[in-house]
Each structure stands twice: as C-alpha cells, then as structure tokens.
C-alpha cells in the first residue's frame, strides 16, 4: 500500500490571473498552512474560482488564462514570474499532487470502479490487487464504501447527484494528492452528502491540505480553519474562521457577512 506523502503548504505571492483583457484576480498574496482546511468566500466574480484553478494551472492550460506571480506548492515553484511550467510530464505530476473537485459532479461515463482507478491507471498502475485496495481506501475516505461496495460495476452516471460528487472526491483522493482544491463542491447537494464531504475534509486534513471555495458561509464556518474573503478580484482579508466571522476587520467583509441576516 502506498504511504500518504503528507500535506503541502501553499504560498501564493502577487498572483494575477487574466482572461484576455479581463482581469479576474489582481496581485494576490495568500499562504495556506499545510494540513488545514482553507475556506475562500466571496460573491460571484470575486476571482475565487480563478485563484483555485490557478493552483493546479488548469486555468492556464485549459481556460486560456494568463497567470503572473509566484505559487509554491511545498518546495516546488509551479508558477513563477519567469516561466509557467507547461510540459505535459510536470503538469501530470502537478495534477496528481494537487487534485480538484468541480462544482457540478462530473463522473466519467463508466463504472464506479473505473472512475476511481482512472487517475492511478493513467499513472501506470495496472496491478489488480493494488487497484482494488486503492478503490476501497478512496471510497472509504469519501464515506461511500458501504453504499456501493457491492455494486462497483454500476455506471457512475446512475448514482444520485450527492453520490456522484462523493465519487468524484474519492476519484481525486485515489491519486494520493497532497493538496485538494474544492470548487463549491456542495452546491446543489443534499444535506447528507454535504455532511459526508465535510466529514471527509475534517478526517483527512492531517494528510491533505484542502482549499475550499464555497458559496455557503455556513460551510466555511463549519469546516474551514482559516477563511479568506475575496471581492472583485482581490483578497480583502484572511483570518482564523472564528475570528473572521466574529470580528471582521474590513468593512467589505462585514457587509458581506451581514448579508446572511438581511
């Protein structure tokens, strides 16, 4: 069985993200401590998803974004002012190290089992016993094993939305990431699936650093150790979640948080 590699610290310095002429994120600094859950809240268009998708360079490779600044994941500088690492081998390596779960559940049109082993197979693991063990471990971590262990050959698209999203989380965990990015993973999910996903973050954060973009400030309050507030492409403030919610220092943050009462 593979050993968990341990969580990575993320240091972003002066990160800007542009899509053509449109600036989505301006010179943002943010440090995420290893082994924590870091919540990012903010209204639509605040740049939180652009920031998240830049942490594994998907914005640059797939969305046509240009990114400047510096991002270090662990000891590895994945983005620097001089260059963006774009060769396929190091991108593959980066994606295995920094996994992502998308806002809408995206199961591939194949069985539950084949969904989970997709990443490991691409990484070259073909031994059946190893893959079986990976599947069980990943599905257990996503609190799904008991629901589906007897029907792993079922088409993943036949699962309910909440199950699909937990499967996607399991699939991401199967590549042994050190960081997992979550882009509003619980929007539109049932409360039970939401609770299970949050439970997974709490259990695994000693091994994996989580960055959680969420539309629900309650969710940030429930699971995030630290929370950052983004507004119009800028990070307004970051603090321990309890402090941010009890005593926001910036008026913008206070206004946004007050919105939940109004």
């Amino acid at each position, binding site marked *: 069985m593979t050993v968990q590699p341990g969580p990575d610290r993320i240091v972003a310095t002066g990160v800007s993200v542009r899509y053509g002429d449109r600036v989505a994120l301006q010179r943002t600094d943010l440090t995420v401590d290893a082994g924590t859950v870091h919540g990012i809240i903010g209204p639509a268009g605040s740049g939180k998803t652009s920031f998240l998708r830049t942490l594994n360079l*998907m914005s640059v490779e*797939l969305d046509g974004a240009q990114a400047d600044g510096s991002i270090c994941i662990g000891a590895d500088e994945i983005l620097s002012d001089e260059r963006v690492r774009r060769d*396929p081998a190091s*991108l*593959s390596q980066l*994606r295995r190290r920094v996994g992502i779960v998308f806002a809408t559940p*995206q199961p*591939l049109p194949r069985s539950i089992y084949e969904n989970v082993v997709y990443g490991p197979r691409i990484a070259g693991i073909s031994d059946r016993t190893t893959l079986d063990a990976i599947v069980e471990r990943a599905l257990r971590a996503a609190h799904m094993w008991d629901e589906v262990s007897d029907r792993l050959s079922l088409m993943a698209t036949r699962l309910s939305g909440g199950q699909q999203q937990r499967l996607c989380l399991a699939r991401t965990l199967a590549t042994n990431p050190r960081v997992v990015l979550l882009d509003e993973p619980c929007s539109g999910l049932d409360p039970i699936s939401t609770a299970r996903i949050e439970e997974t973050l709490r259990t695994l954060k000693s091994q994996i650093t989580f960055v959680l973009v969420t539309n629900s400030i309650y969710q940030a309050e429930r699971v995030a150790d630290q929370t950052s507030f983004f507004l119009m492409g800028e990070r307004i403030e970051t603090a321990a979640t309890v402090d941010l919610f009890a005593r926001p220092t910036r008026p913008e943050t206070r206004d946004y948080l007050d919105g939940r009462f109004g």
Partner: protein
Amino acid sequence: MTATMVEENRASVAPRLAQQVARVALWGATALTVGILVFIIVFVMRRGLGAISWSFLTDAPQRSGAEGGIFPTIVSTLYVTLAAVLVATPLGLGAAIYLAEYTTEGRLSGIIRRGTESLAGIPSIIFGLFGFAFFVTALGMGWSILSGGLTLGIMILPTVIRTSEEALRAVPREYRHVAQSLGASKWDAIRSVVLPVAAPGVVTGIVLGIGRAISETAAVIFTAGVALATPTSPFDSARTMSVHFYTLTMEGISDEQAYGTAAVLVVTILVINVTAYTLMRRFTRSLR
C-alpha cells in the same frame, strides 16, 4: 395594443391550420421517402431473387457471367471495401482528431474543412480517373484491389472525417477537464475518455463510408478492373458486384444474372448496416 390583439387573433386561428398542413406535408414527405426505398428494394428483389441459389453464391461465373455464380465478385467487393475502410479510418479519424482537438478555429482549419467538403462533392468518376492515373499508372500498382481500395478510401474520407469530427465535438468539455485534472495528458484524455464516448459516431461515419464504397462502380472500374477470377493477393485485379452488374447489363450478357447480383448487393448492404448499428447500440448502452 391593437397590434397585439391582431397578433393574438392570428395566433389562435392560423396555427391550427398551419399545424394540420405541416403534419400532412411532413407525413407525406416521410411516407414518400420510405415508399421509394421500399419500392426500389422490392423491385430489385422481385427481379433478382429468382436467380439466387446456393450455387449462385458459391460458384464461379461461366461464359462471362451469363451462367454460373458470382462468388469471385462477392469476395472482390468485400476485399476492395475492406481496403477502403482500412485506408479511410486511420486517416479520417486522425484528421478529425486534429480538427476537433488540436486546432483553434482559424484559417488553417477553415482551409482543411473546405477542402474536405469539396472532396465530398467531386463525382466518383473523377476519383476513378485520378486513381487510374496515379495508383494504377504512375505508381504502377496496376488494376488491383490495392488501387481500388486506395481510391475508394480517399473518396469516402470526407464522410468519415465529418461524422467523426462531429462525434468528437459532441463529447462534453468537462470529460477532458476531469481526465486532465487527474493527471492525464491531453492525448491520454482523448485516447481514454473522448474516443470511447465518440466511438458510436465514428462507427456511423465508417458505416456510411462502407455504404458508399461497396456500391461504387465508376471509381472501381478504372482502378480495380474487371477480372472475373477470384483474387488471391492485393495486387490482383478484381471485379466487384456493382461492376459485374454494370457489365452484365451494358454488354447485354444476362439481365437475370445482373438482377441476381444486384439483389445480393442490396442484401449485403442491409446486413452491414443492421449489424453495425446493432453493435453500436449495444456498445452505447454499455457506456450509459
């Protein structure tokens, strides 16, 4: 205000009539299409089925095809068509992958796409002349299954490219993103996720191409020739069923034998179509 009322009036009376007219017209068009197809099949079968027997399918022709069977032409048809598919599938699928996945819409892809579409509009006899001048003469392949297959392969290329490209484009972008987010390279994602999902569409393109290739006469007569012996190598000349039919009728050898050949050809095409779509449906269901 008045204008809206008039609109509403027209909206309440006209649509009912329009609905009925449209229904009759659409039903009529559908019925006519199916009717013509059925008529052609029945016509060919009535005149051809009488000639068909087991020996007709398995014997060699006698007296230039006036008597005997058509076994060599069945074999030749299958060989030439197979060769065409072997040429067109890798080339066509490759071009489709390039167009759908590796270029952004621009001048180059525009030129390629327009070129492909022009290729589809060229009459088959021109392909025959090209195949004769290039494969048969210039490259010295002679009248052969190889020359015929290459020519037909180029001829059905547009069909394969077009259908495959559409099938590839229909695969949700999210699948590629998921695959690449899990460490797949772009090519990994295409190979392992996009192509399996697009496969039914690609197969449709190939089946359409087979349909065109198997019944082609003009392009084949110039490139594969008219030899009546059973071919034993790709360099042998071969007479396909449609060429045999053409020869039998045009040279007045035997109408009965000609329609027998036509009936076998029609049945072959039907069998290939039904088999391909059945396999495809089973394959698609296993993906869902």
